[in-house]
């Protein structure tokens, strides 16, 4: 593999990308100096959670967006726009609802001035390959999710790309359908029946990455950095129950929950510091439910994350933010793939509703700076009222409008539950009216 003729397919060097804050300034980085090489014959998994910039990275490789800095080259040539040798499969399928299956698959060819007959021949071949025979004249809305995604695959394969990009292609499908599609795709790949050289798969599903990839690249969140690279040497078809497989999954869980060595514990779980910390929108029911789950049988206050994920049927994208919110509020601690309740968390689990709310409110004020900040402003004002826009604008100085909105909504939900302030949706104002 090391000989000189093996020119890498794609080379990504020191690529960085930024958010734009609500006030239009360049915000915190999404991707921070990411370097990556893609060679022939591998399935590479980009594993990370929402906000780690994996989708941004995918779009930069596809030439759909430009990186703020860094170089991307395809077969030694710099990428400046959409690349011919790359095709993409979308989480949402992205099919044209007004075109039949056949027309959807043909579109990419026809747009490139491939002759009508030639396009038809190649499209039928791709449809046949991907197992869509007989559905040629169906419209996407007549198909099930799995069938739709097959159309998405056929459409990508028909242009004979060297690199196939897949943006969480199975995450919109139910568990059984997703598994069938994965196996079918792997079979085609192993048998070498697909005209592609390399696959780059973006996912937040650890098992999926271990099942499919030769190489797994773990991205940290906020900013997206490569924290680990794992080579998977298990032979296809891989068995999920294989101890080696399980070990690998556990190892990645541990990697993804490991505290960065040089950072103060608990800060930096969410992007931004202090008041400007971007928070996930998690309902208090979910938080309480998670605490109860960890406190109960068989975990007794300490749970293994992969087990928890399987029991609760949660993907890491859902599971991690819940755990980290609990960690932020000092109800739990996460380390090396385990989540452990703190004394306060244990107390919360045992308490009744009113006591829980009180405890939650106290922790909210103590450990979520934005909540404390809102409370201080309300206390200081003689009217004890404050417009939401005031805090929203403050947040937008540090993060995108979307994140600012989400963060404020999260704090409103938690604040209402903890009864530290009231919020009126109609007038969009915070007040101290109900809680006293």
């Amino acid at each position, binding site marked *: 593999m090391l000989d000189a003729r093996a020119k890498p397919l794609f080379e990504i060097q020191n690529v960085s990308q930024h958010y734009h804050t609500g006030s239009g300034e360049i915000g915190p980085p999404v991707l921070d100096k990411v370097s990556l090489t893609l060679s022939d014959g591998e399935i590479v998994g980009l594993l990370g959670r929402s906000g780690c910039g994996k989708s941004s990275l995918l779009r930069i490789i596809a030439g*759909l967006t430009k990186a703020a800095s860094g170089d991307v080259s395809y077969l030694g040539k710099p990428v400046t726009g959409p690349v011919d040798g790359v095709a*993409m499969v979308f989480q*949402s399928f*992205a099919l044209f609802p007004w075109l039949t299956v056949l027309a959807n698959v043909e579109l990419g060819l026809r747009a490139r001035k491939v002759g009508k007959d030639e396009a038809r021949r190649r499209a039928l071949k791709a449809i046949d390959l991907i197992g869509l025979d007989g559905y040629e004249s169906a419209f996407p809305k007549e198909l099930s999710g799995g069938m739709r995604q097959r159309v998405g695959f056929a459409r990508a394969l028909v*242009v004979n790309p060297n690199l196939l990009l897949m943006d969480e292609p199975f995450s919109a499908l139910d568990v059984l359908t997703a598994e069938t599609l994965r196996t079918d795709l792997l079979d085609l790949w192993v048998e070498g029946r697909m005209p592609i050289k390399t696959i780059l798969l973006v996912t937040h599903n650890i098992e999926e990455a271990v099942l499919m990839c030769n190489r797994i690249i773990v991205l940290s969140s906020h900013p997206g950095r490569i924290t680990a690279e794992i080579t998977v040497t298990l032979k296809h078809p891989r068995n999920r129950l294989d101890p080696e497989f399980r070990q690998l999954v556990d190892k990645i869980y541990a990697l993804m929950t490991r505290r960065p060595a040089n950072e103060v514990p608990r800060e930096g779980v969410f992007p931004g510091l202090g008041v400007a910390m971007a928070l996930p929108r998690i309902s208090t029911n979910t938080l309480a439910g998670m605490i109860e789950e960890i406190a109960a049988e068989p975990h007794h206050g300490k749970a293994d994350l992969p087990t928890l994920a399987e029991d609760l049927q949660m993907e890491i994208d859902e599971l991690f933010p819940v755990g980290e919110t609990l960690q932020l509020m000092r109800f739990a601690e996460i380390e090396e793939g385990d989540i452990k309740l703190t004394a306060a968390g244990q107390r919360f689990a045992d308490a009744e509703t009113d006591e829980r709310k009180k405890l939650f409110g106290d922790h909210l004020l103590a450990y979520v700076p934005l909540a404390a900040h809102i409370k201080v402003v309300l206390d200081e004002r003689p009217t004890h009222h404050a417009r939401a826009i005031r805090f929203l604008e403050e947040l937008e100085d540090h993060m995108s409008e979307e994140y600012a909105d989400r963060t404020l909504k999260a704090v409103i939900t938690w604040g209402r539950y903890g009864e530290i302030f009231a919020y009126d949706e109609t007038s969009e104002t915070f007040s101290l009216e109900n809680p006293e």
Partner: protein
Amino acid sequence: MSKLNTFPSFGRGALPNQYDLIALALIFGVFVAIGEGTRGINMPLGAVPSADLSLDYRNLPYYALRTTLRMFAAIGASLLFTFTYATLAAKSRRAELVLIPLLDILQSVPILGFLSFTVTFFLGLFPGSTLGAECAAIFAIFTSQAWNMAFSFYQSLRSVPRDLNEVTRGFGLSSWQKFWQLETPFALPSLIWNMMMSMSGGWFFVVASEAITVGDTSVKLPGVGSYLASAIEQRRIDAVIAAVVTMLVVIIAYDQFLFRPLVIFAGRFRVELSVSQTQTRSWVMDLFTRSPWLRAAMAQPAGLFRSIALWRFELPVRAAAEPMNRGTAKAIDMLWLSFIVAVALYALWTIFNYLSQTLTWGDVGQSALLTLFTMLRVILLMILASLIWVPIGVWIGLRPALAEKAQPLAQFLAAFPANVVFPIAVVLILRFKLNPDIWLSFLIVFGTQWYILFNVIAGAQAFPNDLREAVASLKIHGWDWWKSVMLPGIFPYYVTGALTASGGSWNAAIVAEYVKWGDDTVTAHGIGAYIAEATASGDFPKIVLGVAFMSVCVTLFNRLLWRPLFGLAERRLRLD
């Protein structure tokens, strides 16, 4: 059949901003320029060959055909306008800055006020030929159809799903290909819905624009509208009824042959990836899909269109490929903006000059007062119409079997040009010596109240069944039921209907406050009658003044009342 046409929002405030003022100045500047420019060529206008209209019933099919053709020509022009204007606005930030406020104001300008200007202009363009008059009539219909179509298209272009966009870019589709493969199909359902609303409104203007008198110039084009005008002149009530019947037949045929197939066709382009439950049926569509002969006839043009849609049409050099540095871009923005402001100021100055030649402040005061009268009329009648039709609409909408029959009827009534029956009202007013200030008012909402009805029916139909059951089990009755259950439930639909109705009512005021029967004229006090009288006497400055007052009033109405209500409906009261 129901869909919220939302307002575009420009920033957080709903108040008119500087761009509205600029747009207003530009539009009326153009009016003045046309009025001024065509003053010199008044002479050949008298020589317009006015077709001899006979009130013989046997001519009605031919007249109906001419009227329908005019309608088609106008919808064609509207589509062309939509594709160019809205695309430009959606693709160029600088163009958008001017085009969208302009469109917004144009929507509020009462179209019938336009008529006098456009007639003079087009007659001047083709002196001595009926072509000018045809163009003027088509243009009048066009102005009643184009704006909301362009708006819907613009909004669709701005909301093309990101992933579909990425697919087209990934496959390297050219702008032309993307327009026909992605953007137009995506915009189609909403465009067709707006086209239907436009056409419904269009009949009103066909009737109003076929026979028009501006000063000494009288134009009568062969058509149902002119037939009606002649019937009114000759006081032939039987001919009026014949015209009404003809309109009924034409609109039913239109619905069967054009709209039903179109709606089914548009259903294919909805992006939500599920099969919709309600199936519209159309025997015309069935005919097309079942008859191999018709299918073969359609295959050729369809194939041609498909290959045209796949042309690449690439511009040889994309100058904008290299991003400009921010300084240069800002400088060009400033230049562009100051240019627009300068043109607007010049337009304002021209308008002021033009009006001050003949008009005094007294005229301004009078117009303001008359606008107030008309506004009162519109508000009161909208309230009255709501009080009547909301309960009825809810009652119908909650009975599915009844709603199925009533809904097409209400939509049909909304499309029916109410001005056709105005003379009958005049006959009654004259017969019973009624006060026109009160009784003519009803004509204002005569044609537009149906929008409230059919939207409320749709709202009540869409009211979730589980909510109804919950309400029933909680035993909520009487006023509580209306206040906390039904009214909030139908509110978004009601606002849509009331908005359309109120816009239409302002327009209707121009024909409803000034109605003729033979030599008898019945007028009410209001800005509509003021404009209509000024049109009849060819007094352009007064028309400009009257139309300007009305436009400002409608714009304020939209911004201060309807847009906030829409916002409320969107935010709080959506049930889906």
